[in-house]
């Protein structure tokens, strides 16, 4: 893991040179992708860090998204808006994320998990656009902290009762059904449920996404939500006995919450808010697949996490491109864009098709696996899963048709039809999304 961390630290020394950071991050992506087709259960061992299939996939995803973040924030460079600070915050966030995904000790994981909130908060407060970002930052911070402080207590009591917090040693249903197991279980998983986010605890997400700059939205949708999924995968192994009693709670909240949230998407007028709510719906399905504790559910969850990370991040880039030109995120104003930006229509359609799990995107592969795992748990849930799929198409095509087709705003005289860097960013989002299904075993995790 030192190759990522040291590279990152050295890059932080050159933050005054924007293009060098761009190139450096691309090189880090290349380094990460070199080992993608590995066959090791656990490698890059050392210094309380190791990497297995799942961690490696997510580390590559983080580096990829952070690289694309820097490429899509050219407005920060153009306005000269504290470029050095921006790049430093991004690189610190990347380091924290790599540490989180590669940590072997639960406490180390917890500390990095919490630390990722600080650069995120700085990004929102520092480079967001509107006064409401203060409330957004407070919501994000407090929702996550309120749920994760009990996680700290539970990890410390785990240390007291087991003697070690090493992930490899504890993943065997160590906590049976004892007296305090219920409280212990809820304290542990609730942190990740809020991070995912689960339906009832999702209020921070639309706020944070809307107020964040494009870089913040991209990393939030792309990687930070996956921290919740990753944490769940690691912690559910410890509490598997208790989880079997309560998986119905999470499946119901996840799927039905996803249906409710998909319905709410139909009423959104703010593009970023719509994409944020759709993240909640996708992550609800991911959660349901995970808590069912099946092989298909685990792999489907990982695939949907990667696919959703790429797709939502790409959609946020597109929403930002519209915002930079028209000054508004509202679908009532930024509509009929096919007339002014015809080439973007293709990219809108590709990413929108990815969001609704159309083939050949990764989202389809993951969603099929998740539907298989959830339906194998109970056939009755087919109705809700069907509604979830159906409404995801509804709101996605609502956003596509309203933003692209029809008459454009009278006040819009002309706008740039698309810069090369924007096409690059969109290409880098949609090509992995569409191509990786051909060798799907790259994204599966063989835990």
């Amino acid at each position, binding site marked *: 893991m030192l190759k990522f961390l040291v590279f990152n630290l050295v890059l932080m020394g050159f933050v005054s040179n924007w293009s060098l950071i761009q190139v450096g991050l691309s090189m880090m992506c290349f380094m990460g992708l070199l080992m993608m087709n590995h066959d090791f259960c656990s490698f890059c061992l050392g210094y309380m860090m190791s990497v297995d299939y799942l961690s490696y996939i997510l580390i590559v995803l983080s580096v990829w998204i952070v690289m694309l973040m820097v490429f899509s924030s050219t407005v920060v460079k153009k306005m000269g808006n504290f470029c050095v600070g921006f790049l430093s915050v991004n690189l610190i966030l990347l380091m924290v994320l790599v540490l989180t995904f590669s940590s072997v000790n639960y406490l180390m994981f917890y500390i990095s998990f919490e630390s990722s909130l600080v650069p995120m908060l700085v990004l929102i407060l520092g480079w967001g656009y509107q006064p409401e970002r203060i409330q957004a930052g407070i919501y994000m911070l407090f929702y996550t902290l309120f749920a994760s402080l009990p996680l700290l207590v539970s990890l410390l009591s785990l240390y007291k009762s087991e003697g070690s917090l090493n992930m490899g040693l504890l993943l065997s249903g160590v906590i049976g059904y004892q007296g305090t197991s219920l409280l212990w279980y809820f304290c542990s998983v609730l942190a990740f449920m809020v991070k995912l986010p689960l339906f009832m605890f999702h209020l921070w997400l639309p706020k944070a996404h809307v107020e964040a700059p494009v870089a913040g939205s991209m990393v939030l949708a792309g990687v930070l939500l996956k921290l919740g999924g990753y944490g769940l995968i690691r912690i559910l192994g410890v509490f598997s006995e208790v989880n079997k009693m309560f998986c119905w709670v999470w499946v119901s909240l996840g799927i039905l919450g996803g249906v409710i949230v998909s319905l*709410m998407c*139909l009423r959104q007028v703010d593009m970023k808010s719509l994409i944020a709510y759709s993240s909640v719906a996708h992550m609800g399905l991911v959660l349901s697949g995970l808590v069912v504790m099946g092989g298909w559910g685990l792999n489907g969850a990982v695939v949907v996490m990667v696919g959703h990370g790429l797709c939502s991040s790409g959609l946020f880039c597109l929403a930002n491109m519209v915002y930079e030109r028209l000054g508004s995120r509202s679908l009532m104003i930024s509509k009929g864009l096919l007339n002014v930006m015809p080439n973007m229509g293709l990219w809108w359609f590709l990413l929108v098709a990815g969001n609704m799990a159309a083939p050949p995107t990764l989202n*389809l592969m993951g969603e099929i696996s998740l*539907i298989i795992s959830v339906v194998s748990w109970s*056939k009755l849930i087919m109705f809700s899963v069907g509604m979830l799929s159906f409404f995801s198409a509804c709101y996605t095509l609502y956003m596509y*048709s309203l933003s692209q*087709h029809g008459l454009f705003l009278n006040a819009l005289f002309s706008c740039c039809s698309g810069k090369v860097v924007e096409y690059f960013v969109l290409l880098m989002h949609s090509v992995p999304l569409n191509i990786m299904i051909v060798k799907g075993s790259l994204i599966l995790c063989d835990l």
Partner: protein
Amino acid sequence: MMWGAYSHLVSLVFLLFSALGFILFSLVSMSLSSSYVIEWELFSLNSSSVVVTLIYDWVSFLFLGVVLFISSTVMYYSGDYMSGDKSYSRFMYLVFGFVLSMGALIISPNLISILLGWDGLGLISYVLVIYYQNEKSANAGMLTVLSNRIGDVGILLSISLFFMLGGWNFIFYESYLSGNFLLLKILVCVAAMTKSAQIPFSAWLPAAMAAPIPVSALVHSSTLVTAGVYILIRFSGALSGSCVQSVLLIVSCLTMFMAGLGANFEFDLKKIIALSTLSQLGVMVSILSLGFADLAFFHLLTHALFKALLFMCAGMVIHSVKECQDICNMGSLVTCMPLTSVCMNLANLALCGMPFLAGFYSKDLILEVAFMSEVNIFSFFLYVLSTGLTVCYTFRLIYYSMSSLSNMSSVMIVSENHSKMLKGMMTLSVGAVTSGCVLAWVVFPEFYMICLSVPLKILALLVSSLGALLGYIVNMVGSSTSLKTVKFYSYTMFVSSMWFMPILSTFSAPRWSLSSAESFFKIGDKGWSEYFGGEGGFGEVMKGSIYLQLSQDNMIMVYMKGFFIWIIVVFFIFI
């Protein structure tokens, strides 16, 4: 780019030669009774492999050949039809993408890889329907794609049920599906019903006529709507003997009847043709539900050819009368546009089942086989009535558009000097005339043994001629005729608006979901979730801290009261 302007020529050459090649391969494959299956493993998990399977047997080669043939002529035709359009190249790319999706659907006998074609068809047809940027197209496109999406969800759920078999190659598991997989069969049938616009999902097909004519000719006559029938043909081994068949029979016969009835009251040229497509789809699905999948395939192929021809002629007509689609404003086109009228009449008569044209071989055979098998009297009457109604609306259309006195405005230039459109139509008319007999003699050489009594045998012919007379004469009304349709307006309204399905599909269900979405958002997310979450917590904490603030107000009263209470406490503890 220069070559974008010639994409119609490119597609004509490429697709036509591919089509001829595929038909050749189909004959070879049929004579050798061989089929090739190629698999590419996407991933394998816990001993179930998700693969992309491609099958090359005579069915897929023949279907591919016919689809590519039709699409080559349609793309050449759209070189003239869409010639003035600004995003012409986008249109051609979309149509080509559509043809590729249809190809992906035809050659996939795997439930997961068929999704590539199935979802691709739905999405690309959506973009094609909303091609003209007006509200009618937007609404039609949304209705189309959401009706198709119900089918997609059906296929996704059937994938999850297919998991029980360990693989998704339904071509291999057909024989294992008899018995307990009723839910799976229901889901696949629902998917096919949405794609082929059976009742209750029929509202999208006439609405999708907001698309440009080449799109209707390709998509809504031969490819998209036949995808549902095709998947049922591939699944026919699994469906035999299950109770799904009876439901399919009733639904498809009702669709057949409803569409035929509705087309008699419709005045929009494209909608009449759409409803006739719907009626023929009902015929295909009904004969399939009786167990004769190869007859359904036969009718699918012949219908594709003459329906695409009919759409193309309608496009030529609409283009010439300056985009007015109302048949009340047409007439005597046979004098102004002779070649188009010839092609249109060929297509119309083929549709009616005129002896020895394309439709006769398939449709007559279907009717005779249906009369011979065990159908209930309800379906039997629906078959007979629909056959009559088909001829009725066909001759009505001929009367209004071609043979009546001219109802067009007094300054009208009607000509057919679009050579590409004409060439496309002529190519397809060869198919419309000969495809029936060629397919019957090549593909289905073993004839069905038809043993019917004389009345049943001539029933089809009798009902057709009756329908023709009725359709032609009843519509010869002048401006002072008192119409019975006005007198019984509520019945006319019921029949002509497709039994209210468009209203049900567009006003009732979306209204419920949008209003519940609003209440979930306003009362849920902005209301109670905030109360039990951020805002409520904030309010409670603020209220609590007010109490704390009171104690820090430095009021002598508070200190004295505290002192007093403390004295009493000490008094009671120590004394």
